[in-house]
């Protein structure tokens, strides 16, 4: 049997597992995946790896007593054994007061996230993609000597689930992430690029490498500007790592409990209130062709198109099924993808319309300083530039910032055209526009290149 099962194969296997169940309720989650990666540094291949993983998890419930057992062998005896094991563990478990039972059959949206081009990537294809990148940095020509450090990581796999109440779900997907840092050999310049796709055929490592080289060469000779409040243009790679802290903090329970940026005095929340500029709309949609995602959450709930922030107003919070039941609301799960709507301007047009500002291409080491205000700190990295009269004038030294993405989205000047980016903090992929923000707070200078 192959590692990546078809829908029919997965269904047959799951039905067989359920046929062994003697519990009140039984749910089976199945996954299979193949991953490969290639890493390089100092213009040389450094380490590489591959991983084959398949796993079947059975959850059995007697009333509110729940047990989970897992196995990676799929013969009949092993399958029956794992069901019995989960039942034994359920009988021994303390009651889970927050257990709300399993879902019945669900309807899911159609989403296509599986691409044959990615599924067939092998070590030779990985080496070829990396060779195209290395060639450009090894033969950097008239420019300063360049050195590359990069990482190519691809995955093909599927997940499926079925339960004793008739729910069945299946989703195959593929993904490739590529990232590269190009530095001048003397350490005076550094540029970065990252690309994420579901379809490996879209990945052009040579084109991406040219972007990193351009930023690297352009960043040499950075001048120091005084820290303070500046108008900034955040490229999507920079914006993603700030915005995702809003996405991660949309939990209803924390807001209701009074320990979230969405909490208000007296146990109320900001649901329904305008918290950012009215041009800000953030939503999730598993069917988006540029960012396809699984149309169901890990517990089988359908992932629908959900508006989280619509024209600046908080429209939805994410609920566990327990908390939704307690509050008597629809149990909207945390999304599998996040998209921020934008405008039509290109990055170049945004720069042209800027009298004085700073172009930030990447941010690094983002950490929460105050969860109450979502205040974050971190630094610019790998290419920061001063803009004057609509033109990039010169590279500037890196800054540390202390800023809240909520305050930032209230200081919005303009949004560009969204593009798919990979978060350098979480590796999540998003569709995010470049953003022009006024009064972004830089608090100190860094000597790092």
């Amino acid at each position, binding site marked *: 049997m192959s590692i990546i099962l078809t829908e029919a194969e997965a269904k047959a296997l799951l039905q067989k597992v359920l046929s062994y169940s003697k519990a009140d309720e039984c749910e089976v989650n199945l996954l299979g995946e193949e991953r490969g990666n290639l890493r*390089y540094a*100092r213009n040389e291949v450094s380490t590489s790896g591959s991983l084959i993983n398949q796993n079947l998890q059975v959850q059995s419930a007697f009333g509110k007593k729940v047990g989970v057992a897992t196995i990676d062998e799929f013969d009949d005896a092993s399958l029956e054994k794992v069901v019995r094991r989960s039942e*034994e563990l359920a009988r021994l478990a303390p009651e889970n007061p927050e257990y709300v039972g399993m879902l019945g059959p669900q309807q899911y949206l159609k989403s296509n996230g599986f691409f044959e081009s990615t599924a067939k990537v092998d070590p030779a294809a990985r*080496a070829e993609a990396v060779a195209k990148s290395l060639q450009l940095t090894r033969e950097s020509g008239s420019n300063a000597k360049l050195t590359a*450090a990069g990482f190519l990581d691809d995955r093909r796999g599927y997940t499926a689930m079925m339960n004793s109440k008739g729910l069945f779900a299946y989703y195959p997907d593929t993904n490739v992430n590529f990232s590269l840092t190009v530095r001048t050999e003397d350490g005076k310049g550094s540029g970065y690029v990252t690309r994420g796709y579901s379809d490996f055929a879209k990945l052009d490592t040579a084109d991406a490498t040219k972007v990193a080289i351009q930023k690297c060469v352009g960043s040499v000779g950075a001048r120091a500007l005084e820290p303070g409040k500046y108008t900034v243009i955040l490229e999507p790679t920079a914006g993603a790592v700030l915005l995702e802290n809003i996405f991660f903090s949309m939990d209803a329970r924390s807001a209701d409990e009074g*320990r979230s940026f969405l909490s208000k005095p007296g146990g109320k929340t900001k649901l329904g209130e305008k918290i950012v500029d009215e041009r800000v709309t953030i939503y999730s949609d598993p069917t988006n062709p540029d960012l396809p995602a699984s149309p169901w959450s890990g517990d089988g709930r359908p992932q629908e198109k959900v508006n989280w922030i619509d024209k600046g107003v908080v429209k939805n919070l994410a609920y566990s099924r327990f908390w939704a039941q307690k509050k008597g609301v629809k149990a909207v799960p945390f999304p599998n993808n996040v998209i921020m709507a934008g405008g039509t301007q290109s990055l170049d047009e945004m720069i042209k319309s800027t009298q004085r500002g700073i172009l930030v291409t990447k941010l690094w080491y983002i*950490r*929460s300083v105050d969860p109450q205000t979502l205040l974050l*700190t971190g630094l610019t990295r790998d290419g920061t530039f001063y803009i004057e009269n609509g033109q990039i004038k010169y590279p500037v030294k890196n800054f540390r910032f202390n800023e809240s993405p909520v305050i930032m989205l209230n200081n919005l000047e303009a949004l560009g055209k969204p593009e798919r980016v990979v978060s350098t903090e979480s590796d999540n992929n998003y569709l995010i526009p470049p953003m022009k923000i006024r009064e972004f707070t830089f608090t100190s200078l860094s000597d790092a290149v």
Partner: protein
Amino acid sequence: MGAGAVMLPNLSAWGRPVAPEALLEPGIDVAVKKRLADAALNAAKSKGASYADVRIGRYLRQFVITREDKVQNIVNTESFGVGVRVIADGCWGFAAVVDAKNENDTAKAAENAVAIAKANAKLMKEPVKLAPQKGFGEVSWQTPIKKNAFEVPIKEKADLLLGVNAAAMKNGANYVNSVLFMVNEQKYFASTDGSYIDQDVHRIWPTFTVTAIDPKSGKFETRDSLSAPVGMSYEYLQANPSDKVTGITTRYNKGYDMLEDVVAAAKQAKQKLTAKSVEAGKYDLILDPSHLWLTIHESVGHPLELDRVLGYEANFAGTSFATLDKWQSKNFNYGSNIVNLFADKTQVGSLGAVGWDDEGVKTKKWDLVKDGTLVNYQAIRDQVHIIGEDESQGCCYADNWGSVQFQRMANVSLAAGKQPLSVDQLIKDVKKGIYIIGDGSFSIDQQRYNFQFGGQLFYEIKDGKIAGMLKDVAYQSNTQEFWNSCTQICDDRDYRLGGSFFDGKGQPGQVSAVSHGSSTARFNGVNVINTARKI
């Protein structure tokens, strides 16, 4: 990168869930491990590898996770498999196999590793240079534990945490989350150098976060546990009076009183709600070891990793300001002349203590910064020739049998002051200062110059006396400036370890656990910012 306070990792990534009693079952016999290892080593050599090592790993983890009066989750995981690393045609290759059952499985992994090495060798221009290492034959090492946490019934652990939570709620907390992390790494290493090393490594981390809310203003504050993750087992939770450091709040050394700490935490979280917001400016900082460990970790541990200095981590964690020319000059002032920083993989009770590292090198202690001057780095076998040494420093580590081993931080610590000095004496001389206890927010640039740190508890010092609690405090500095502003370090009576259970590095990411020791130290004229905002 670095490591936070109560952060829950992706639990499923640790291995497959098992019953708690499975964590007490012995792993496979050492003689069987030797047979599996020899099969891989022989297969690698016969396919043309010039060097091979095999790691047979059984990784056991138990996490007990609670909030208020509920046990949210009890996770028991076991992960068993074999990783084979080879050098063929001058290039590294690595392959791993889950649940390897026989010699065929491990031989197959070795063959795959050789095939990958040969494929990648075509892209390589500079072959790997491996420092020589003598074989140690059949040897073993164990963390010296007194009470194996896996032998303590789950109910006892859950009851401990529920008791801690109840104490927090009784003392004014609105919410409390508490966790007990327990790890046992059973690692077998064999190499073509002739080593067969069997090691049994234990770690434990009890921790919590208490939240207090002011319903009128809607403000909330938290206080995290002042425990440290340690290279011990359940005995860490049995604190003797001599393990406690009394003062403005009780801190802990080789034993931790979780119940006592949570009572203090609940009161302090409430106190923080009404504490004075700090006035930004320059202050002399008095940093407790429960805080200073993280600053050492980020501003000394990471920049002195040789792989970062050389550029191997440039695409993710970054490079380092501590370049080879600074080391070669023999006069780079990393810190003031009272600053002595050392690496030590043998420190008892530390997270990084093992007998041998994950490439068969016997562990040791060495100086990094001596009397303020940069004198060395942390290096492994394929890099140590670059700093002119012919023997690795023994700090190679992989977080799992399926991860390739690479250079990871040793325990890096600040040596205690040589002159007798207590914390009270230290504070007595400070005119305008802040005393910081516990670790908080942390961020540092990719070359480790500019950093910003928060904390758990902040106390204003005015004219040699503690004047009250502060909040909204973070300090920003530059590594060299900061360590050169170190003017006093308490003596070894105050020396304690802090540490990180989940230090991240590499692509794909791996975690490692590492300790950092220090005594309370004074840093003059550090820039403090106010972090309060309105949204």
